């Protein structure tokens, strides 16, 4: 079996195994898996409203998945996507509130602010890694907490006077679109999906088509050989984290300017960044794979809301199914092993 084929088949099998395990759990807990799954799928795409919500949900997943994958392709683990999403969210809302500009300037400016904030948040661990060899996983995890508390603090003291959330961002900086909402039966669908798809294209283009991408990939695979070839390994490490953070910041703008239109105090993380890790993993760190994986994750998250309504199955069960899919992906080594083993037998 060719390697490429295996790379495609493994995630699919993982998804199927995850769903199967979910079915078994539903049966054990006394629910009908057929009903459960049909409610789940109906809740994803069964009505235009659900479809709109699914697309809205998967939009930030694409971008956070891209963020994780971009760093990973350069050999770095960006666990800090969550924090970069938060600062991006804040920055987009801040710019949205601070200026009064025509939409054609205001909206791009707000998105760029988010991108820049995420990039800056990615720059710090990249710089520490390049300069002092501090492991990026540790720094990015710490940066997540810093982001959470700094963002909360700014919302409470700078953007408001002790309120729980900021005022709504004016229409001129919003991704929200009355037309899309109308078309999708008043879901929260917004224009962000186009930005996310453009992001996926951008990642593919940078990595596969540009000399910079050649360097980034080369450094990711073998930094000794890259150094030998005259590439500046440290600069590429920093750049990779900056671009990764920029994608994550854009994911934050999707929430700040699209789904919500404001920023609020958070008791904990949004999960967008951490789910991005799973999306990147499931999508094999490729642009197209990430889009597909984000559709699945977004769909499951939104569809899950429908399960308790129609069948009484708790949403926690969907979380368990998602967790199981991740588990099977992470143990894809076993699937790979079983596949190659079988193909060996087939030959004899």
């Amino acid at each position, binding site marked *: 079996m*060719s390697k490429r084929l295996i790379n495609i088949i493994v995630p699919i099998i993982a998804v199927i195994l995850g769903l199967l395990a979910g079915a078994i759990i539903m049966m054990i807990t006394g629910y009908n898996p057929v009903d459960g799954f049909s409610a789940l799928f109906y809740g994803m795409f069964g009505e235009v409203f659900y479809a709109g919500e699914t697309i809205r949900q998967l939009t930030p997943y694409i971008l956070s998945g891209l963020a994780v994958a971009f760093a990973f392709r350069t050999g770095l683990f960006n666990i800090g996507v969550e924090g970069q999403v938060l600062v991006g969210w804040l920055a987009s809302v801040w710019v949205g509130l601070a200026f009064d500009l025509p939409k054609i300037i205001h909206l791009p400016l707000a998105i760029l602010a988010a991108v820049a904030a995420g990039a800056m948040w990615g720059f710090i661990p990249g710089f520490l890694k390049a300069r002092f060899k501090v492991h990026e996983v540790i720094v990015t995890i710490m940066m997540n907490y810093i982001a959470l508390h700094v963002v909360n603090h700014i919302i409470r003291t700078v953007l408001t006077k002790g309120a729980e959330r900021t005022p709504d961002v004016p229409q001129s900086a919003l991704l929200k679109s009355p037309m899309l909402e109308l078309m999708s039966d008043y879901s929260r669908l917004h224009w962000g999906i186009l930005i996310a798809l453009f992001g996926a294209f951008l990642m593919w283009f940078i990595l596969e*088509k*540009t*000399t*910079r*991408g*050649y*360097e980034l*990939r*080369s450094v990711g*695979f*073998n930094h*000794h*050989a*890259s*150094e*030998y*070839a*005259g*590439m*500046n390994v440290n600069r590429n490490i920093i750049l990779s984290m900056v671009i990764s953070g920029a994608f994550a910041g854009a994911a934050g703008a999707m929430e700040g300017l699209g789904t919500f239109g404001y920023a609020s105090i958070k008791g904990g993380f949004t999960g967008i960044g951490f789910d991005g890790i799973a999306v990147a993993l499931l999508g094999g760190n490729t642009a197209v794979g990430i889009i597909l994986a984000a559709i699945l994750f977004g769909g499951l998250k939104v569809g899950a809301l429908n399960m308790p309504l129609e069948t009484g199955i708790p949403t926690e069960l969907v979380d368990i199914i998602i967790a199981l899919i991740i588990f099977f992906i992470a143990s894809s080594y076993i699937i790979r092993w079983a596949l190659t083993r079988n193909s*060996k037998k087939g*030959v004899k």
Partner: protein
Amino acid sequence: MDYVIEMLNIRKEFPGIVANDNITLQVKKGEIHALLGENGAGKSTLMNVLFGLYQPEQGEIRVNGNRVNITDPNVANKLGIGMVHQHFMLVDKFSVTENIILGSEPSKAGQINMKEAIMGVRQLSEQYGLSVDPNAKISDISVGMQQRVEILKTLYRGAEILIFDEPTAVLTPQEIKELIAIMKTLIKEGKSIILITHKLKEIMDVCDRVTVIRKGVGIGTVNVPETNPNELASLMVGRDVVFKTVKKDANPKETVLDIQDLVVKDSRGVASVNGLSLNVKAGEIVGIAGVDGNGQSELIEAITGLKKSESGKVSLNGKEIQNMSPRKITRSGIGHIPQDRHKHGLVLDFPIGENMVLQTYNQQPYSKNGILNYKNIYEKARTLIKDFDVRTPSEYTLARALSGGNQQKAIIGREVDRDPDLLIAAQPTRGLDVGAIEFVHKRLIEQRDRGKGVLLVSFELDEVMNVSDRIAVIYEGKIVAIVNPKETTEQELGLLMAGSTAGKKAGEEANV
């Protein structure tokens, strides 16, 4: 006579290539059996089949006359087959003993019994004359020692048949002698050995029989006492091979590389290049002879910008280049065939085609305005693959999938093609077959004849003496003598390399 191992009519295919085509290999108990073949002939593949890493499409394997099905390396271990790989598989941060017991730890109630393990390792080490310190850390011991740890690993798992895949390629001449002694002890203790090597001399010295394969096809098995190196070479290549490199006299011109009082510290802070001076002229090949660890690697790393020098000067064509970035140095006209092809020479997970532009990807015609031009990249790759006889199914194949020797040829092609004023070749023929060695030597001499400077570093005295126009002997970070290869002998070189002050030192050093 009974065979311990019989591999009958083995066939193994990879996408686009038949690596083993109906090969038969029969090994007698207690013999050293050589496996000989060109780069990419399929030797490693055949051994990986025997060790259970690959499954053959056809053929059968018998161990002690019983038909077996070796599905993975654990099965191979149980059958008493052990393998010392071309590239070691050791955990750097672990001790020798920890590495050896990894995967088969002696344990009592879930606790690893370290004392017992260390004793076991020490005892094995003494039995086979390996003198390995069971407590040393892998990162602290030499390559030769690491190899012995690999040998111990197989013995610890009860190997009766040991496969050595090009064990001598990474060793110094002294270490090779010691390894040969170890192999003889192993045979005395009743083990059998399959040895892959490109060095015909080693086959003549230690092997009993040799099986030759050519382009995946078994050519036959001959008794070593009944053959000679020339016959073996032509069996393997399919034509006659010239051993003595033929070349015209050098015609040295202006100085290309000039090194003055260079000092370079190694990773531990010791000055391993310690006030070294040397020059290379256009149109000559300067060979550096020396025992491994006398500053050769640090010297090359300093010239190419991979390591900082503490003091001294390095000039290329009269311009100082010390402590410039590797890119600047590369661009100013230095080509470098690195000693460690996997670490520095290639990005193994890139297609071989993309590896061909590792330094030039951001120049025209391979890219323009930051956008890669894959068409031109792969066109260049195809030309180089053809010109340098790199055997690969296609230019899109990952570098990882090429045989060791073909990876090396690809690197040489890339570096020579950039047509540098100074070509640094560190162990350029390590792991190459005799035909390919001849080819590489020709290319180095061709560069010289085109008026380029060549700096050759090699642990093989034969190579240094055959190819160089001048030999610089390095000892403890200094050039201690410059000799003329036509006037010197291996003995004299050996003495100089060992730091003997006799001979030419005093008189010649003044002329450096």
